[in-house]
């Protein structure tokens, strides 16, 4: 993804939802895109499939898949690409499954819709697919309707549909957010195993930093339509350099916390995309800003091996940031 920009044409001028995103992902890699609502994380993922809802448009940039540019693909090519190369798993499995069709039939349809398998092959693959995502008694349950499945099972069925065409890129948008923790744990395990078995590239979109720590090799942190920090998971968690990443990690209570420290909260709200502040987009909420942040937007610069941050200050230059942030 090179210099991608997504804009929405609304009354009052264009709103930039994604502004100049660059990143790469390899087979077998799991990359997490984290951010709060409105940060542009979902738009970034949808643009990979050219599925930006109206009136949004990709206004610049390239999305290279191998040698091909997704932005330039014809309608026929993009259909092929979506069906055979990429799979998307959404947050709410109930709204993504058709309530009046049997689950098995829907999985079969997903396979048959794209030319990789014949109807017969698709039919024969349904039960093994459901078994692969560990739906118990898959043979009996292919004839169930979505409402007969629990939330976790529906998500498994969605994953089965997604991976049935053996995609090389799997995009999971908040795949466990609607699920209970014990169910969430089993879906995480499933995604981990599948990424290994399929050797697919996985993009996990989430607001849950803990989930990222659990699954991802690399993390991209988004804020106000921009990447503010990216790098290997360990570096991001152990040594975050952007004040937003740093604060986000300290604003979450941890289940393993021993001493109850006061949570570091980020004051205020993310900016309205139609009325972006000048300079660094995070500066109105940043406790570490300097004068330059108010007028000049920092570039995404290298701060460590494979780690980039968009900040003039950087956390490593701040002495005792906890005390500073709690002031």
């Amino acid at each position: 993804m090179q210099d991608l920009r997504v804009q929405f044409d609304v009354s009052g001028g264009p709103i930039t939802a994604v502004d100049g995103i660059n990143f790469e992902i390899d087979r077998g890699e799991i990359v997490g895109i984290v951010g709060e609502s409105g940060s542009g994380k979902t738009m970034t993922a949808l643009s990979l499939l050219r599925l930006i809802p109206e009136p949004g448009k990709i206004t610049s940039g390239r999305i290279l898949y191998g040698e091909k540019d997704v932005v330039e693909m014809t309608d026929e090519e993009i259909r092929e690409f979506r069906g055979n190369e990429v799979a998307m798993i959404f947050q709410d499995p109930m709204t993504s499954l058709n309530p009046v069709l049997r689950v098995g039939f829907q999985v079969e349809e997903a396979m048959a819709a794209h030319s990789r398998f014949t109807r017969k092959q698709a039919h024969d693959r349904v039960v093994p697919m459901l078994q692969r995502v560990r739906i118990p008694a898959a043979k009996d349950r292919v004839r169930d309707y979505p409402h007969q499945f629990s939330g976790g099972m529906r998500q498994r069925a969605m994953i089965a549909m997604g991976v049935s065409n053996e995609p090389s890129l799997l995009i999971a948008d908040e795949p466990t957010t609607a699920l209970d923790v014990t169910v969430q744990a089993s879906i995480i395990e499933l995604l981990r195993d599948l990424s290994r078995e399929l050797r697919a590239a996985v993009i996990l979109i989430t607001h849950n930093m803990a989930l990222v720590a659990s699954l991802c090799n690399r993390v991209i942190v988004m804020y106000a339509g921009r990447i503010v920090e990216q790098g290997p998971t360990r570096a991001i968690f152990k040594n975050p350099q952007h004040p937003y990443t740093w604060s986000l990690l300290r604003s979450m209570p941890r289940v393993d916390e021993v001493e109850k420290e006061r949570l570091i909260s980020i004051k205020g709200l993310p900016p309205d995309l139609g009325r972006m502040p000048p300079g660094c987009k995070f500066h109105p909420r940043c406790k570490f800003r300097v004068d330059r942040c108010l007028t000049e937007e920092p570039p995404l610069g290298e701060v460590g091996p494979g780690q980039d941050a968009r900040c003039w200050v950087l956390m490593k230059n701040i002495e005792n940031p906890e005390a500073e942030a709690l002031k």
Partner: protein
Amino acid sequence: MTAQPAQPSITPTSDPTLKTPLVRVENLVKHFPVGGGLFGRAVVHAVDGVDLAIAAGETLGLVGESGCGKSTLGRVIVRLQPATSGHVYFEDIDLTKVRGEKLRRTRQRIQMIFQDPYASLNPRMTVGDIVSEPLRNFGVAKGRKAEQKVQEVMRVVGLNPNFVNRYPHEFSGGQRQRIGIARALVLNPTFIVADEPVSALDVSIQAQIVNLMEDLQSRFNLTFLFIAHDLSVVRHISDRVAVMYLGKIVEIGPSDSIRDKPLHPYTKVLESSVPVPDPDLEAARKPILLKGEIPSPVNPPQACRFHTRCPIAQPICSEVEPPLEMKETGRFAACHFAGQL
């Protein structure tokens, strides 16, 4: 087999470590009839015999997965819904029995904060009207005095008092939750039930609200029942935690000791399921995956309700229901094999 205690066991309502219980819930039951259907009398056992006590000034966290009955329990405690049977004592007043003027006076001191700040605020009312409504309803203050009180609580929860004439849609999710908190505070309550107060909010905003609730608690000496599915948030804010499964409390104890050593297998499973924002710890964490699905509360399993999914279940677990009793000082668990997973 565990040895039978010689004396009658100690239950959460007779917990000797709890100095001044403000709220005591005894054998509380809430059943909902469902459907007409062929059998007509199907019943959801949403809350099925709950005992617990909440000490004055503490935060008791109530965790459990969807459908375990935690929200219903909260609503029955504040009497938003009538109990099917059992008792809820607030100080010494039985909330399930009290009527008339005494109920009104007691109710002023008990308030609720809801999950969804979008749905729980009337969109046609200004913030000032929303926050002052309890004052009018209870005839506590009106006119200038009410206005002053509203401005005061708005300041307390971190809202600009000049916004009294704005409508809920003009506020962000976090600010709306502050409005909900202001409304709960305006009557100077003693006890607040907060049902998933932060789960609809973005991470950075959650911390603001959690900190606010902690500040308010120490400032006004509030007692909280904090209901949530997120174990990390509950652990952070609570002095003690109660874990609920299928209409029953399976474990209660101080949050730290539950973290260090969960007694009930279900608590242990929950603990192991929550990811931690630390890649090194995550690499080492091994979640205990439960078999099967949560059974229907219409037809919950006999004896121990967790036995159908429990990794250490024995024959006795499907025959004899383990009572919620004290296993160690201040720690209660309803399990024949507590602490063995």
